């Protein structure tokens, strides 16, 4: 890096100004969330008598606890499943060079282009027939399949750059293929697994359209749908709505700031995949 000059200081101040600009909505969010409804001053003025009433009220009336639990359940189950089956599938897809294997891989990649709106409406019918509609398991099943193409794509790209020597040695030493995968290949896949874990978790946690379809009308909600329902119910009570928004953002931001290094490199990791 070059030396710290006066011009660097100017740049530093300019960048901090940009960050403040980006952070401005967060200030308003928290400022209004702690404000009693009776206070109607400008959203820019710091709240004079802050209160946590909005939070307790939003938590109880929005059944946000249940929604949070559902979101965690759906995200954990579907991400674990998709990582397990996709890494397993990527192994032969990357190693077997026969034509049928390459064709299968292309078929999987087709899934990257198909927008889920195309599949989600007919699948709605199937879920109804299976009696899964309105349960979190419909979502787990859906995400575990939907995220396969992207996750396989990440793993295959990574595996093709890995030498075969270790797995060959394991097979010669008498490992079964599954043991070879579990104890030799999987540990080497760790960097790309972090990327796949981060990207899949964020995608599943944040998805709104699918639970809107498959959970509508049921008591089971995920966080994004619960928030949308809450906004629909308390249309103009923005102080209460903002408290609900803070509650839904908080777990995400806590995890983000704790793991920011792996999360950011996870996002950037798609670049090398």
């Amino acid at each position, binding site marked *: 890096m070059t030396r710290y000059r006066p011009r660097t200081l100017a740049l530093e101040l300019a960048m901090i100004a940009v960050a403040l600009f980006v952070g*401005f909505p967060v200030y308003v969010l928290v400022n209004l969330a702690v404000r009693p409804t009776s206070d109607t001053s400008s959203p820019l003025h710091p709240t004079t008598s802050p209160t946590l009433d909005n939070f307790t009220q939003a938590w109880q009336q929005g059944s946000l606890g249940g929604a949070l639990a559902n979101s965690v359940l759906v995200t954990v189950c579907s991400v674990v499943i998709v990582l397990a089956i996709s890494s397993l599938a990527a192994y032969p897809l990357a190693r077997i060079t026969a034509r049928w294997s390459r064709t299968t891989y292309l078929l999987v990649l087709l899934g990257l282009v198909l927008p889920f709106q195309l599949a989600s*409406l007919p699948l709605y019918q199937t879920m109804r027939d299976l009696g899964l509609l309105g349960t979190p398991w419909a979502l787990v099943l859906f995400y575990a399949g939907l995220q396969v193409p992207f996750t396989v794509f990440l793993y295959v790209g990574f595996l093709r750059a890995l030498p075969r020597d270790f797995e060959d040695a394991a097979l010669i030493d008498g490992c079964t293929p599954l043991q070879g995968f579990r104890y030799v290949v999987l540990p080497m896949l760790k960097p790309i697994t972090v990327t796949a874990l981060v990207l899949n978790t964020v995608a599943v946690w944040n998805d709104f359209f699918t639970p809107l379809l498959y959970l509508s009308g049921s008591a089971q909600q995920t966080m994004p749908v619960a928030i949308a329902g809450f906004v629909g119910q308390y249309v103009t009570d923005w102080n209460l709505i903002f408290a609900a928004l803070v509650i839904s953002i908080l777990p995400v931001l806590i995890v983000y700031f704790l793991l920011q290094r792996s999360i950011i490199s996870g996002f950037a990791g798609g670049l090398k995949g």
Partner: protein
Amino acid sequence: MKVVPARPGRTGPPWWFMAPALLLFTFVVLIPSGRGVYYAFTDWDGLNPDFSFVGLGNFADMLRDADAKQAVWHTLLIAVSITVIQNGVGLVLALGVNTAIKSRNLLRVLLFAPAVVTPIVTAYLWRNLLGPDGAVNSLLGAVGLGDWRQDWLGNPDLALWAVVGVIVWQYAGYSMVIFLAGLQSVPQEIHEAAAIDGAGPVRRFWSVTRPLLAPAFTINLMLSIIGGIKLFDQVYALTGGGPGHATDTISTLIYKDAFTLGEFGYSIALAVVLTIIVAVASTGQYFFLSRNERAAS
């Protein structure tokens, strides 16, 4: 006596490792997508088991449907604007952060933070901020730009751009992180060598940095254009497609036609159009950019 295979290491992993992923993928994506394409040629309402084949009827209706044509136009406009603005801002931020400034690590974490937050949540936040009495107008008033105050989401001429602005706010940091990863792969020695040879900062960016950023450009343009084409959550929460149909995209129209109007067949025909647009955009971009990457390296 046991028969030892000639080259045990070359047998490779068994094909059935693919089975669980392929089964689930087929059940959740391939079969429903195939059925979707079929329904696009019917007048199915989503419930009634009796429906008839209408050939290209739904697509012909689309050509006559001003709302659908407008939604396609909005979708393309949003996708292109987001791609240009978000990546432009992201690149400038990346160049700013990738310097000797002391706050660079903190800035990177803060500027990326909006990208991990649920889009529907940030969109509801902005719906309030952009309202007539919202914080954006208050801020404009406070800095003496009171004349610029607007009903950002209620004005049909502005609403679409307000949506674009919200998305750029949320994802410029994402583009920045991808560009940063690319920038950090540019060896410092090359910059120094170019500087010694008399190249100014602009020339160094254009001739040294830009070609080495080609992979980052590919990923970023891909992500933003496909994300822009599929856009649903933010429009749903910010404007619901309104005022009127001023911000309807293909995705919001798919939702409305299927679940409020019960026109499943027509809705899914729109999804087929969406698929074609995504496919054309991504393959076109892939070939164009990979040619560029080769030219750059």
